[in-house]
């Protein structure tokens, strides 16, 4: 037998074996059986967790043969694209991803399809995190709650802040990871060495940045923005002595332990300062974690650890949610709605969520956080994240949330940069927020002004 003939016979044998093998050796078993669906288009934000989402979508396409088109959009353009989509005759998107702050506008506007209207048997698996029930809408109460509310959306991403620290730096200084803000302040004396190194960096820029971070202090001190919005009492309580104490503490940490431009620090700056080794500790959203273990972006690979955000001494553990909600617009054909729900069903399976986490995103199922992944060094942030979920809550969950955020974002920043005292800033914010509620016909009022 010649060599050529032998090779041909072997090739034919190999081909015969390949084609006679059972089908599951060719394609991975789908995490959920969703059937053949028409192609769908998703409006998705290019946030730090996007790469993981994209990879998971590719896996969905491989497993099911269904096609998904992603319209990847920077955060700044998301809201407008979503508004234009739902307000038009027919939405170009079958799923739209909404920042939790925007959801009320879309729920109240009647622009979304309740998920059970697409398939009455659809329910979120019990392991799926609901992030303060932001996916439910009770139209009568005008409140996001499953009690009397309809399931309108599910979360592809839930952010809470983590308190990140440089393990090597703290070890060298003989410090333990902080449990309280008082620990953080005490460590400042050892860690603060500007401009070589800052002890703690926190977002302080006007707008969403400072509002979001300060609310950790606010929750920790037991303060609130309004008295009981869930039950219709919109009395403004932002100028309480507890809120003032929270603001004073925030300013002390940001100024005493941070850089001179604390009032201009945005998300990018905070990540940059920690990733370059210029900061020893930082308050950062969990979605930013991948920046610190990527050698292409970080000078501190493997040196950053995570703990829950500290509480004040005697205060409560804070955790402010900042999640995204994926929803199906009303103005898409029923077949598209079914295809969008099929993707949703698949995406929320344990298998898909594990793949999602492995691809660098933050999963949204509690069992993924409790799996063996959490014990590997790559996912060492998971225990802190899961701990934070125990007391995480939504803030500004009312229709006026965007306006209140604008007010707080400005007044808190003015207090931080020293344009006005903390009491004056909170009094001004309280008056302005009350005005917003009054104009919208809410039952409102305010506390007596703080002494300025």
């Amino acid at each position, binding site marked *: 037998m010649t060599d050529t003939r032998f090779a041909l016979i072997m090739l034919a044998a190999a081909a015969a074996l390949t084609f006679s093998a059972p089908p599951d050796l060719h394609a991975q078993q789908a995490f959920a059986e969703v059937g053949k669906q028409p192609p769908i288009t998703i409006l998705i934000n290019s946030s730090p967790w996007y790469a993981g989402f994209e990879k998971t979508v590719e896996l969905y396409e491989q497993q099911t043969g269904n096609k998904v088109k992603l319209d990847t959009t920077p955060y700044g353009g998301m809201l407008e694209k979503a508004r234009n989509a739902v307000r038009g005759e027919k939405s170009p998107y079958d799923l739209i991803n909404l920042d939790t702050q925007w959801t009320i506008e879309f729920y109240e506007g*009647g622009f979304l399809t309740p998920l059970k209207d697409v398939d009455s048997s659809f329910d979120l698996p019990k392991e799926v995190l609901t992030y303060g029930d932001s996916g439910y809408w009770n139209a009568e109460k005008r409140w996001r709650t499953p009690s009397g509310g309809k399931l309108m959306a599910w979360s592809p991403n839930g952010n809470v802040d983590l308190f990140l620290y440089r393990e090597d730096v703290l070890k060298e200084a003989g410090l333990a990871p902080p449990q309280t803000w008082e620990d953080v302040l005490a460590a400042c004396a050892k860690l603060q060495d500007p*401009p070589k190194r800052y002890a703690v960096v926190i977002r302080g820029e006007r707008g969403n940045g400072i509002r979001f971070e300060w609310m950790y202090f606010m929750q920790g001190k037991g303060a609130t923005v309004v008295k009981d919005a869930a039950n219709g009492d919109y009395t403004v309580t932002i100028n309480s002595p507890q809120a003032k104490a929270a603001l004073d503490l925030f300013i002390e940490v940001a100024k005493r332990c941070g850089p001179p431009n604390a009032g201009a620090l945005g998300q990018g700056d905070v990540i940059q300062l920690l990733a370059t080794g210029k900061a020893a500790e930082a308050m950062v959203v969990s979605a930013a974690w991948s920046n610190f273990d990527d050698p292409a972006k970080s000078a501190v690979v493997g040196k950053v650890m995570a703990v829950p955000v500290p509480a004040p001494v005697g205060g409560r553990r804070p955790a402010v949610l900042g999640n995204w909600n994926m929803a199906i617009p009303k103005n898409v054909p029923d077949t598209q709605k079914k295809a969008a729900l099929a993707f949703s069903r698949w995406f929320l399976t344990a298998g898909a969520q594990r793949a999602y986490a492995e691809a660098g995103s933050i999963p949204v199922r509690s069992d993924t956080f409790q799996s063996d992944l959490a014990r590997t060094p790559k996912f060492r942030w998971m225990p802190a994240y899961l701990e934070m979920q125990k007391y995480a809550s939504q803030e500004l969950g009312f229709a006026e949330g965007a306006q209140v955020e604008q007010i707080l974002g400005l007044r808190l920043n003015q207090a931080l940069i020293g344009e006005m005292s903390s009491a004056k800033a909170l009094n001004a914010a309280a008056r*302005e927020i009350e005005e917003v509620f009054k104009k919208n016909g809410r039952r409102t009022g305010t506390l007596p002004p703080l002494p300025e």
Partner: protein
Amino acid sequence: MLAATAAALNRGFRYWALLPAVLLFVALTLYPTANLLRMSVSTIEFAEGRAHWSFTPAHNVALLASDVVLRPAIVNTAIFVVVAVAAEVFLGLLLALFIARLERGKGLARTVMILPMLVPPVAIGSMWKLMYNYDFGLFNQAFTAIGLEPVNWLGSTSVALAAVILVDIWHWIPFVFLILFAAVEGIPSDVIEAARIDGATTGQIARRIMVPLLKPALAIAFIFRGILAFKTFDEVYLLTSGGPGTSTELVSLHLYKVFFEQNLLGYGALLSLALIAAIASALLMSRRALAGRKRR
């Protein structure tokens, strides 16, 4: 009879010929303006998947009166427009005069000069934000290298607006330069030569001959840049988003926040009209000032 009909048609034709342009004007200008006017006296809310309009002019005026950010935004915009436009026109004129005098390499100099104008605003914002960065920025690295204290460019209320104005000047000098350079090149050389023969110095030629001859071009540069400066948005949005505090809040940025972040469409429309009125008033005043000078 036929001739009379043809004559009548001919007389009317000029009006019929205008019709497409009039229709286009109505569709593209009058309708949006009328819609803006309607919005400015309304509250627009969305429910049951559609927009609900209610006539609430007093509500929008009340929002205007109680808008605490608007006042600093107006002051900042006024400072921004006056300082940026004056600096751009002055520096653009100097550069136009200087480059027009070059014997060689004029084309290259002109090409290099207009480069900043070609850079997309997003790239400008990112680039300057990086240069202004307190810890890693080019400026502070240079300052510390020569023993100076780093400057809190975008984080200090006393410096941030100046930092934003500087970016605007860098971005828009080429625009002014192009207008004025074309005008300088258009000045008859015999006028300059005659002045030189009469013993005029370079400074005198520039002041007494060139600048007066350049007045129409200067007026155009001022007006165009003034209008654009009133509407500046991208630079300030990317660099500071109006902060720290309200130190770099400009009216157009505030307008964006009202429209798109707070979703107050009616009040946003009222603010837009106020901005249009402010620009129109500034234009009218500048035209009157120019006309007054001409009469004198």
